[in-house]
């Protein structure tokens, strides 16, 4: 196990490096603590796989250093880094038994056979694979195979870090629930440093203690799931996390309040002035719906109501801008128009996408 440090890491795949767009990874200074659970979350092409390959040694960063504890491993090849990786599709040997699949990474390293047996048993136990140890892997279901892949990733005790690259993408939803909670439980039990790469916010938020949200080659925010949900530092984070994402509406600033389409809206960040493209951000969870006769609130039309079971998503419209609000199961929704009340402590001002700091910008 190790603490992983990325110091001034940048990466470019091409030969020209003049433009921002030439950098697949813009600039990264980050430390992953020993034994922590981290997630890299972002859309396809955001740079998360590039970063993973830099940590595993498949890629050498164009600039910067990679440290495991205090050792510089920037020039070390992957096989010397002691890393375990689990991929989107199961990587197992069909003709081997489940036991031999799990034992493979240990035997490969010349681990003593009695230790191999004990460790395989332990991992099989945690993953509820004990009954299948004698079976060939060929006949197993997709999730059974992926469980073995997870087991192979976790079986070695001498790894510096375990990296999961979209490990549950191909798994059906109801099995995803089981495997996800299994993984979380395993982290709590084995105490290895784990990094989980995904585009799925639910997986990232439930697995990790710290989530790094990436977009266009840069880390936009690092924080706990609660930080990311409650206080997005960038409108991208607000949009990407949460389903549906945060509502973002263009506004102006007058007397410390945001003005959206002529309606003054109180905001949480105390701001007297701000420069750049101004927007307010507020999550659908923090908007209350009142009927159109209410005395306060922003008057809107109702476009559509989608039933998600335990809540409904109400799509409303203010002069062409769509604002979504979440309403719990069983609460009545006015039929024609409505007024929206935006929770002032959860509504924030953003300039050029970034959260405006208290006091504002000159």
């Amino acid at each position, binding site marked *: 196990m190790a603490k992983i440090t990325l110091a001034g890491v940048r990466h470019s795949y091409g030969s020209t490096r003049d433009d921002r767009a030439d950098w697949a990874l813009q600039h990264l200074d980050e430390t992953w603590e020993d034994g922590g659970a981290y997630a890299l979350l972002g*859309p*396809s*092409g955001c740079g998360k796989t590039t970063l993973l390959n830099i940590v595993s040694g498949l890629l050498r960063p164009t600039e910067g250093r990679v440290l495991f504890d205090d050792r510089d491993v920037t020039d070390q090849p992957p096989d010397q880094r002691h890393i375990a990786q689990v991929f989107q599709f199961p990587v197992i040997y069909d003709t081997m038994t489940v036991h031999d699949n799990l034992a493979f990474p240990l035997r490969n390293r010349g681990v003593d056979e009695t230790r191999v047996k004990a460790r395989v048993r332990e991992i099989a136990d945690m993953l509820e694979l004990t009954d299948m140890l004698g079976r060939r892997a060929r006949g197993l279901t*997709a999730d059974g195979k992926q469980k073995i892949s997870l087991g192979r990733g976790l079986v070695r005790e001498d790894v510096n870090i375990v990296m999961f690259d979209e490990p549950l993408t191909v798994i*059906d*939803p*109801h099995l995803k*629930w089981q495997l*996800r*909670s299994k993984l*979380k*439980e395993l982290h*709590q039990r084995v105490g290895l440093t784990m990094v989980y790469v995904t*585009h*799925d*916010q*639910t997986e990232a*938020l*439930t*697995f990790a203690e710290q989530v790094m949200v990436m977009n266009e080659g840069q880390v936009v925010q690092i924080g706990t*799931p*609660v930080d*990311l*949900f*409650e206080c997005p530092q960038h409108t991208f984070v607000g*949009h*990407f*996390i*949460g*389903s*549906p*994402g945060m509502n973002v509406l263009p506004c102006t600033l007058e007397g410390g309040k945001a003005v959206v389409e002529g309606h003054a809206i109180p905001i949480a960040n105390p701001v007297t002035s701000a420069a750049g493209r101004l927007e307010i951000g507020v999550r659908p*969870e923090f908007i209350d719906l009142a009927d159109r006769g209410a005395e306060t609130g922003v008057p809107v039309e109702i476009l559509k109501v*989608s*039933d*998600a*079971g*335990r809540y409904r*998503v109400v799509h409303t419209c203010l002069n062409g801008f769509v604002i979504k609000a979440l309403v719990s199961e069983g609460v009545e929704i006015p039929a024609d128009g409505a007024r929206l009340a935006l929770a002032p402590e959860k509504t924030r001002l953003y300039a050029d996408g970034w959260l405006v700091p208290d006091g504002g910008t000159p």
Partner: protein
Amino acid sequence: MPLDLKGVSKQVGGETHIYPTDLTLEPGVFNILLGTTGAGKTTLMQLMAGLERPTAGEVWFGGVNVTGMPVQKRNVSMVHQQFINYPNMSVFENIASPLRVARMPKAEIKARVERMADLLKLTPLLGRRPSELSGGQQQRCAMARALVKDASLVLLDEPLANLDFKLREELRDELPRLFADRDCVVVYATTEPVEALLLGGNTATVFQGRVAQFGPTGEVYRRPGTLTSAQVFSEPPINTAPVTKDGATIRLGEHTDWTAPPPIQALPDGAYVFGIRPHHVTLAPDGTHPVAIDGMVLVTELSGSESVVHFRLGADDGAAPWVSQSHGIHAVPVGQVARLHMDVAQGLYFEPDGARIAA
């Protein structure tokens, strides 16, 4: 024109893939096939399209028996999970290809492609090759090609499964709008209950080669006909436990009981099955009829806005753990007993054979 499956079944070798199925799918509304991988959704679609011939039963379309009529003669469009485009054609040519095959006049082809591109936000990309597009754009291109001709049957087989989470959300919003003014039967297969709910329309829950239930999506979700249908339509999985009815009282385990709703009270005493969805089992009392229940906490998952607790009701007897889903962040220590609250007014009651009892 509706699509009718009349007693359609499919056997391959000695194995039954689809048991005799009756289903009427109407135009103008999304028809969703919801079920896990391997449940039979794709086979059902292939039978509807004429890509597979039923072993028994008939397929009718608009009052005409089309059983055995090949897919080429049926005016069907299909979109698969793995999107397929012609790599050496531009996006425009890809979308136009079915219209060229149908020998449509050039001006009309142009108008139709442009309209479809506009709806699917592909207009700036019409000159590009598929390889220059992102995954989401490629799938939108494949979808545009499937929708550009006036097919009378459109089959969408997990079309969003390979896309990024956020793109999926966006397209899910757009999709029903694409069909709003078209007179065709739309069938959409998914493994995700929330996706089925958000798309609305009608849903068939499919399990092990059988349609468990078919009806308006919200209805099937809230009033499942059987335990199987409820299980197919719950994410996270619905919690279930054997209960005993004794007069007006329902007992779950040794320490939990509550008063049964009147229709249940009227049933004979004995063993039943109780089911309750995770969001009706919460850390703080919620709803109209909260009943406390204690559980041994196995795992807690805290997302940004909610807490999910996996717990065991009694001794580890091999039964699936229960799941509770609450608003807000509540750190519950693992390995200890926690008190949870079921809103039993939201619970479902089943006969031991799985049939739901209306309560």
